[in-house]
């Protein structure tokens, strides 16, 4: 007679060979579950044997962790972390003027002395703003009477199409009253005449190019990305159109003042002009900023006002006037400095003509109509498809009925 131990040791094969039919596994106990291994002593939990399922689970967890680790490279992770911490540039001091935030504040100051934070945004003329800045920057106080004047424009970047926003650009505007901006500007001069080329170079152009170089630019043998702007003499006016697409915003035209007869003066204009950048906000796509230095504090206020007017006109050309004001608020500051004064610019913003408004409305209606038509078509198609399905259902029993 076999002992139980021998039975267990021998296993099912041995038993089957003896007297238990092969098919019945019911009579045999599940050996593995009977073997209750107990781990006793220190660190029992660590020494516990793992079941197959547990081992599988651990293996899978490890794999998942590895995959997670390999998902992003180190640099990608750095970039992701930066994106999460990203602050909207529009929120940087002095922030954006939002009428909703000022609803509870007083419209007008209650008396001659008032606290700014208790009252809605007050708007000043350029002249008043300059005089106020001069009070702070006088030699007895901050001692910076020749400080650069900074104009900060808050922009509305939406366009006629909801998915498209106003494009980011960097351009130079010639201003009537120049000042030393301290920026390095590289200007290209397109001149055919050699003498005039010399003149252009003397005026400060980086390169003076003739008609032969246009071909090279088209081929790509001459880089134009490194230059801030291009000016052209009228005798080159017919030769430069091929590179319009390459130069894009830097292309000289009569409109932007880059095309003319006095090449030296042109170069001078753009060398001393105001360079501005229109940048969209990565976090709030409808917002944008334009920060420029428009003059110096010691300039006469009227001259500064002209410069500001010029700049605002140039900036407002980037968006259709029918959509509303491009500039939410214009603020005059001093570099370096905390104080800011909101400017009155309503008279400078472009007013859309009646024709333009009509055109815009027409286009809007057209689009609405098109959308409606599309919807109807889609509905019809859907209905047609349903009808087809129903017909298909009806078809199948008919032959059966016919046969029956």
């Amino acid at each position: 007679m076999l002992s139980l131990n021998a039975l267990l040791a021998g296993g099912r094969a041995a038993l089957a060979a003896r007297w238990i039919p092969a098919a019945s596994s019911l009579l045999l106990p599940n050996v593995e579950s009977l073997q209750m291994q107990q781990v006793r002593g220190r660190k029992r939990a660590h020494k516990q044997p793992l079941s197959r399922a547990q081992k599988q689970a651990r293996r899978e967890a490890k794999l998942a962790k590895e995959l997670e680790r390999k998902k992003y490279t180190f640099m990608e992770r750095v970039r992701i972390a930066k994106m999460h911490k990203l602050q909207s540039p529009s929120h940087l001091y002095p922030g954006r003027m939002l009428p909703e935030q000022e609803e509870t504040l007083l419209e007008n100051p209650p008396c001659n002395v008032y606290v700014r934070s208790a009252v809605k945004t007050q708007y000043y003329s350029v002249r008043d703003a300059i005089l106020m800045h001069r009070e702070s920057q006088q030699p007895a106080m901050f001692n910076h009477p020749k400080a650069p004047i900074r104009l900060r424009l808050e922009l509305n970047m939406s366009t006629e199409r909801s998915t498209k926003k106003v494009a980011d650009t960097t351009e130079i505007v010639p201003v009537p009253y120049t000042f030393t901006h301290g920026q390095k500007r590289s200007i290209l001069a397109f001149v055919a005449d050699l003498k005039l080329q010399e003149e252009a170079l003397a005026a400060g152009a980086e390169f003076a190019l003739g008609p032969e170089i246009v071909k090279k630019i088209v081929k790509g043998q001459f880089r134009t990305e490194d230059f801030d702007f291009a000016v052209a003499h009228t005798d080159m006016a017919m030769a430069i159109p091929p590179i319009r697409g390459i130069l894009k915003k830097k292309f000289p035209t009569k409109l932007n003042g880059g095309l003319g007869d006095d090449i030296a003066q042109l170069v001078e204009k753009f060398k001393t002009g105001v360079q501005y950048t229109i940048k969209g906000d990565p976090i709030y796509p409808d917002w944008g900023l334009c920060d420029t230095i428009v003059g110096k504090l010691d300039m006469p206020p009227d001259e500064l006002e002209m410069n500001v007017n010029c700049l605002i006109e140039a900036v407002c050309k980037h968006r259709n006037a029918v959509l509303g004001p491009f500039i939410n608020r214009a603020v005059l500051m001093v570099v370096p400095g905390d104080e800011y004064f909101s400017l009155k610019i309503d008279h400078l913003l472009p007013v859309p003509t009646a024709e333009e408004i009509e055109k815009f409305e027409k286009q809007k209606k057209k689009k609405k109509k098109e959308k409606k038509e599309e919807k109807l078509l889609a509905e019809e198609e859907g209905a047609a498809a349903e009808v087809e399905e129903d017909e298909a259902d009806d078809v199948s029993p008919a032959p059966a009925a016919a046969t029956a």
Partner: protein
Amino acid sequence: MRSRGGRTMIARRVNFRVVGSVQSLSLPINCPWTDKYLSSVVEVELNTLTTIRPTGGSYAFVRVGPNDPPNTWVLQHVHPPPKTAPGEHQRPPDDLQSLMKYEVVRNERVAIKAPPLDVILLQDIEGVGNQFDVVKVDRKLARYDLLITGKAVYASPFNMKKYDELRQSMADELAKRQRVDYQVLLMTRALRKLVVPICMSLENKWTIAKTNVRAALRHAGVEAPEDAIYLPPDAISGPNLAIEAKLIRFYVVLSDQYVVPMIGRITHVSADSSSE
């Protein structure tokens, strides 16, 4: 409600209405489980132990029906119970604790804001009005402060008549009273709290003048014209590091009427960071 050993016992009759995917309302443990499906509107007498408690979960906005009595709470399952297939037995609700969890659905009645209340003020109250004025005030302010403390009374026809007569009899006294515009009053308080840093140059010679104080006030967020600023008669000159961070007194006059004493602190500033 009395608390007993962590669970609450509700002694009075409260109505519960459960919304959402309801198969049944789970009943307290004492109730026998039956095959009966309970209707969606149930009156439950909760003087027994329950697991119904409002959780901090998401709220849905459901209007309390017009026929629901005022003490109705609208509940929904935190974990919707599984749907019973037709012909099958319902899963017993007290099978799982999670099936007996409910959360309170926001009662629209609670979210309605009551309109302001008409009251007659019995004294001058800042930001509200003057004595004997009939004003509309926020209900909470009226009920928790004004009416209880006797600063105001309801604008009932009787009170209106009574205080109108009283006002007429006190007309002389009221005319003598000096009243300050509330906004101006707030302004004066804000100005008195300020310590205005008066930033003067470290390099150039200076004497504190009105224009300097005006610029300093502007930097601190206060707009004031020069003729509203009054400086002490003794002129303060510098640069003098002995008076650095010292406080000076000056006065600002609001609308040629109210004199506000203000404090300034002399701060030497310089753009040159080499000498600190």
